[in-house]
């Protein structure tokens, strides 16, 4: 390998402009698609990771089983007794109950249906830590707040779902199931329209709105003591609560989840989905490699005479082999670089669209290894596609090649 070889490859690419560009175009399309898709998959994984870091891996959740979303099944729920029992289990640190119910939110004569969450205001710091969310505006709920409501981020904007005609501001009055509440604050953005349009009230207010739901929890959130493994604690809670409720193993009507469990499930789903999409996009890269191979075969034919001359003046087989493989790899790399650039544009645009449509958690990330990986991959795809034509070129007999017309 020397500089002369590189220069020669490069000049050849310039010479057959149209064909080179078409080949580059075909590879850049595939790289573009892969780059854009994978950047979104990585973005989601990155989001999950930051979430878990902020939330702390010590959080555990006890859910009731049932046929609906937590808290929505009228026949399966967790009770105050369950919670009191769990709070006494060794290793359980802070613990707080969560009420969940569908509610009718009315503002300016318009009605929307969203989740109403009842929480214990004295645990508010623990809850915000568990939700990995902070007060954006106003103040948090505190003890004694009854006709006060704390809202999800989206209520402050008329264009975001739940899209009331008018934006809600601090001090406004909204109706929940017909009862008047004063708005005292907003959470910061979570990043999806469901969470960002929930409303939060105190446990006391909740049991006034839904008297039949008193002490029936959607789920219970708790943290493990420092130095206690949350997964071991989860097993202990499952076993003890099962005995407490008089249920046999495998017949529990509740389940305990640690943050690690939850992240693992989401992480797997995201991984599988982006993998499948990237695989489909990979097909176009295979097609592109075939195109490169084709271009290189043609190049070998066209330049038979040239090869003959090179060999006649002393080029070794390995020199010829290298020239063609490098040329082919170079085609791939150029396609890779342009593909990464375009993929970056597309993914950024996609991220912007997702943000505008209420899903700011769907954001691409562009780590250096993705960029470098894509370009290297394109280079190798090209180089490998060039191997067969290059071998053919290197095996040409100088005399025959010179005679070739």
């Amino acid at each position, binding site marked *: 390998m020397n500089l002369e070889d590189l220069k020669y490859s490069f000049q050849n690419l310039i010479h057959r402009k149209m064909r080179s560009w078409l*080949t580059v175009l*075909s590879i850049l399309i*595939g790289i573009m698609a892969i780059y854009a898709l994978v950047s979104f998959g990585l973005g989601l994984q990155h989001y999950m990771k930051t979430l878990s870091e902020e939330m702390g891996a010590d959080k555990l959740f006890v859910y009731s089983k049932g046929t609906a979303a937590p808290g929505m*099944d009228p*026949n399966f729920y967790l009770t105050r007794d369950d919670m009191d029992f769990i709070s006494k289990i060794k290793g359980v640190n802070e613990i707080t109950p969560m009420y969940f119910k*569908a509610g*009718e939110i009315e503002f300016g004569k318009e*009605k929307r249906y969203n989740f109403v969450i009842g929480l214990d205001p004295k645990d508010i710091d623990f809850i915000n830590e568990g939700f990995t969310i902070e007060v954006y505006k106003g103040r948090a709920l505190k003890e004694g707040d009854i006709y006060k409501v704390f809202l999800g981020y989206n209520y402050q904007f008329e264009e975001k779902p739940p899209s009331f005609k008018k934006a809600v501001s601090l001090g406004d009055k909204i109706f929940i199931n017909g009862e008047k509440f004063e708005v005292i604050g907003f959470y910061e953005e979570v990043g999806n329209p469901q969470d960002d349009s929930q409303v939060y009230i105190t446990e006391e207010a909740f049991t006034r709105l839904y008297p039949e739901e008193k002490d029936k929890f959607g789920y219970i959130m708790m943290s493990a003591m420092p130095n206690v493994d949350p997964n071991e604690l989860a097993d202990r809670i499952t076993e003890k609560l099962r005995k407490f409720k008089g249920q046999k193993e495998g017949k529990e009507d509740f389940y305990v989840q640690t943050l690690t469990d939850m992240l693992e499930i989401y992480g797997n789903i995201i991984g599988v989905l982006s993998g499948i999409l990237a695989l489909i996009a990979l097909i176009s890269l295979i097609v592109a490699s075939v195109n490169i191979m*084709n271009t290189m075969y043609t190049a070998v034919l066209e330049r038979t005479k040239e090869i003959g001359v090179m060999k006649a003046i002393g080029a070794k087989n390995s020199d010829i082999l290298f020239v063609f493989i490098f040329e082919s790899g170079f085609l791939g790399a150029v396609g890779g670089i342009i593909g990464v650039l375009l993929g970056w544009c597309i993914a950024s645009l996609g991220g912007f669209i997702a943000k505008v449509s209420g899903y700011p958690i769907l954001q691409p990330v562009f780590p250096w290894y993705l960029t470098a990986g894509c370009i290297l991959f394109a280079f190798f795809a090209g180089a490998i596609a060039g191997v067969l034509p290059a071998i053919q070129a290197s095996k040409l007999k100088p005399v025959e090649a010179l005679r070739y017309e």
Partner: protein
Amino acid sequence: MLADYIRFSVGNFKRRKIRSFLTMIGVFIGIAAVVSLIGLGEGLRTAILSQFGFLGVDVLSVQASGISYAGPPGTGAITPLTDDLAEKIEKVSGVEAAINRYLKSGTFEFNDRQTIGSAMSMPEGDRRKIVETMMNIKAEQGRLLKDGDARKVLLGNSFAEEDVFGKGIKAGDSVLLNNIKYEVVGIMEKKGSFLFDYAVLINEETLLQDFGDDGSVNIIGVKVRDPNGIDKVKADVERLLRKERDVKEGEEDFIVESPQKTLETLNSSLFAVQLFVYIIAGISLIVGGIGIMNTMYTAVIERTKEIGIMKSIGAKNSTIFGIFAIESGLLGMVGGIIGIILGLIFAYGLAAAGRAALGVDLIQAHVSMALIFMSLAFSFIVGLVAGVLPAYQASKLQPVEALRQAK
């Protein structure tokens, strides 16, 4: 004329076998990807839609407004429907029957294993017949429910298999529902729909007695006499419910829907997902097209001398254009044919492998004739379009220049 073009093209393919073959590989991989993905997607969509296929054109459903993604019908409701409404709806003209359906969640135990699920009510009397016809259910083992069947249950076909409880349930077995002993009177025929195959049906009276009755109904099914008049009946039912529930027009806290509408919504959201996958798969087809274009440019350069000769013995520009365009289209189409065959093998093979591996009937492939012809036509068009520029370049060559330029 066309036959000549084709003969000419085939001759050229033979002359440069490797290149033609490589070009075709590009197209056929693309077509195979498109055919197999569309086939699988279409099969999956049909399978999902068939889950709801029993919903006829003469049925309306009434539900209370609320959060629709909270769980089974009625769970996310704010003001549930009351059980006296059905009787009133039945009096609306054009309504054949209005039937309360209750869904109650509970535990289901058999063979010392337990799951949690929903049981659904079967109405008694004449209405039973209507529901049975509407749902088109038949017993595979035992019999259907009849009036007076207390603590008897009719189960969907999946419970007869081992996966749920480790042992199949047979007619005559006893099961525990919410820790109360029920006798299985029958197992329904397999429908391939989870709504049916995992159904737990109990007579209304027993269900309300054992699972609790709070006077609320999950969903009211309304059968209309004349499907053509369904819109008018819908409006009348809405007017009645506004009056009954004391709400103004535009502020309804209930939804009257024809299942057909629900199906359309589901269909369009499924289609959006499919479209995304098709676009990604379609990209490889575009790449294949670029490959054809590349090959054709090379062919024009290679055959410059030939073109010169043809022109000098009287070939018109249009003839030259036709020769190259057809050749390019054929390249695409032959690639397309191979691609369709491969795509069919992939689609059905993957679907079968998926069913075997996951045991889910939902994974089906469905490759329609329309899809096959479309792909064939599309591959030809891709070839043709890719060939237009090179063919145009060839047709514009000056005969004298062409003869001289060739090496």
